[in-house]
């Protein structure tokens, strides 16, 4: 029993909670796209990687951090827009699997392009954020910030979806794709807008991730799979479900990492995902498919 109340264990738990914030933020944009356009952006984490490079170069190029972040978010939103316009739109009527694969091609492309342009070096933004200390436990400020921004982002997205006309249109498309065209909503425009917002959220996640992780071309592969798992686990298009799923998955990783090697935490999380898919394929909070 003593071991359970170990201060390091508590620290691992809280750090897991903070990691959940980052993962939830990552899942937020993907969830929106998944829910509205019904396409899995396998390359979503690669957009985040692009964003991290964006912040890195703008910040080290002399811009203030906030400005660098804002520009990056806009750039990645544009990238999301272009991704849908150039790549997804032509295969929207093809088999779902082709849509999955084509974004996989984008993953390859972006990752290789980053290698070509920036090399395989690990780059650090070189900004030391303070470490918070609370009763002998240490937390990274960057993670606390990420957690807070993820919460704000989620609430902001919720308000956008529920209070604005465009948000209502997005939710309507999510509910019934065919009928909405008859109601005078241009699905094409809504898809493009959703992609841009999804891209913007990837940019936002990038701004927070670059504070805690070194950026390198393959960083997308570390976050990508876990982000899909969280989206599906939480129930597609269900933001709160995504947050809960992010929490569960990151606690598994953190606690697994506390008791054994980090990889075992991930192994448990992935196996949990596979089993949950069998038990609740619609996700934790999703409606029955």
């Amino acid at each position: 029993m003593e071991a359970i109340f170990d201060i390091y264990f508590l620290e691992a738990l809280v750090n897991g909670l903070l990691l959940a914030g980052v993962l939830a933020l990552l899942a937020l944009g993907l969830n929106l796209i998944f829910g509205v356009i019904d396409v899995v952006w396998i390359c979503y984490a690669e957009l985040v990687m692009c964003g991290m490079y964006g912040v890195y170069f703008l910040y080290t190029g002399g811009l203030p951090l906030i400005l660098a972040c804002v520009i990056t978010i806009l750039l990645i939103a544009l990238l999301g827009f272009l991704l849908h316009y150039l790549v997804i739109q032509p295969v929207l009527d093809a088999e779902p699997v082709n849509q999955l694969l084509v974004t996989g091609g984008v993953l390859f492309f972006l990752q290789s392009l980053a290698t070509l342009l920036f090399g395989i070096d690990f780059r650090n933004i070189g900004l030391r954020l303070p470490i918070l200390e609370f009763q002998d436990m240490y937390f990274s400020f960057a993670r606390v910030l990420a957690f807070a921004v993820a919460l704000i982002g989620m609430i902001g997205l919720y308000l956008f979806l529920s209070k604005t006309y465009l948000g209502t249109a997005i939710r309507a498309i999510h509910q019934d794709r065919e009928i909405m065209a008859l109601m005078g909503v241009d699905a094409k425009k809504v898809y493009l807008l959703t992609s841009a917002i999804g891209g913007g959220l990837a940019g936002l996640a990038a701004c927070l991730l670059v504070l805690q992780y070194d950026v390198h071309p393959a960083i997308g592969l570390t976050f990508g799979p876990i982000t899909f798992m969280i989206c599906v686990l939480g129930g597609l298009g269900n933001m709160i479900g995504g947050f809960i799923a992010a929490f569960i998955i990151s606690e598994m990783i953190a606690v697994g990492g506390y008791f054994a090697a980090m990889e075992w935490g991930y192994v448990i999380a992935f196996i949990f995902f596979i089993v949950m898919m069998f038990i609740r394929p619609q996700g934790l909070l999703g409606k029955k498919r």
Partner: protein
Amino acid sequence: MISKFFAAVGLAILVYIPLSMLVGDYHLHLMIQILLWAAIYTGWAIMGRFGLVSLGHGAFMGIGAYTTVLLWNEFGISPLLGIPIAIVLAVLVAAIVAIPCFRFRIIGHYFALVTLALSEVVRLIIVALREHTGGSLGITPLRHADVSPLLSFQFSDKASFYFVALLFWVFTLLIWHLVDRSMARPAMMAIADDEDATASIGINVTWQKLRVTLISAALTAFGGALYGQYQMYINPDTVSGIAVSLQIVFAVVAGGMFVQFGPTVGALFTLMLAESLRVLIGNEYHGADTTIYGLMLILFIIYMPKGILGAILARFAPAKTAQFPDSKPGDAESSTAR
């Protein structure tokens, strides 16, 4: 008849190549790579062409390669025995994941994501067991000078391994052919179109899907084991995980997953492309070849979803394709026409 003649001539040429001494080690190495990957891609496409798009084949390849090498290094079990054990293990893992998948009707995106998780699980387990597997650094099968190459399955010359790869490739094509000729094909095509309707005419949907999945997993594990024995070095990123899974799927899509030689064309095309881009651009621009490769993949999937060979065959043999409609899953017209 004519196709059999061509097959015999083609095979004779392929057998003659290493004996002729006309090709150097470099070209032989390329051909071995192409044959090995072509076989693995064919193994994937045996299930992939029925709409079972698995992103988990990296898992089976990793199990095949690592089990064989670990049995040899840790217990001294010859790959002759180790490879069958590895295949059985991969088939077991495939069954554990596939049975509930098919029972609970996990299809499409969801099937792809579950299998994606599987390939990550295997990669992470390999990394986590770093005391035995060497973790991310990879592992090399031990060489024993006193053991016969037949027992250790390690050949000093490329020509011997060339024949192993050739044999394996022909074997996978044969399996494809057998599946194609059996009742499994129409059953699987019906399942790809409509699972409920297929079940209603008395076809055991779960068993049909499971069977092709297990065959596919076994071939991929076999390929992974041979790959490890040929390269004499494996690491988690070259034989398992998402990267390998995607590589397999992409090459097959590029070549054409609905025709027998499509995966082979995919292997030929992707390896030749990567190799020529590498030679053309040189090594100083790291990533240039894969950038172009990625771009071409995107264009392929958008404009040539049937793949290179699929598109060629559709153009030059319209009469034949009309007779045997493409087994494109979800294509309602072709299934009702039959």
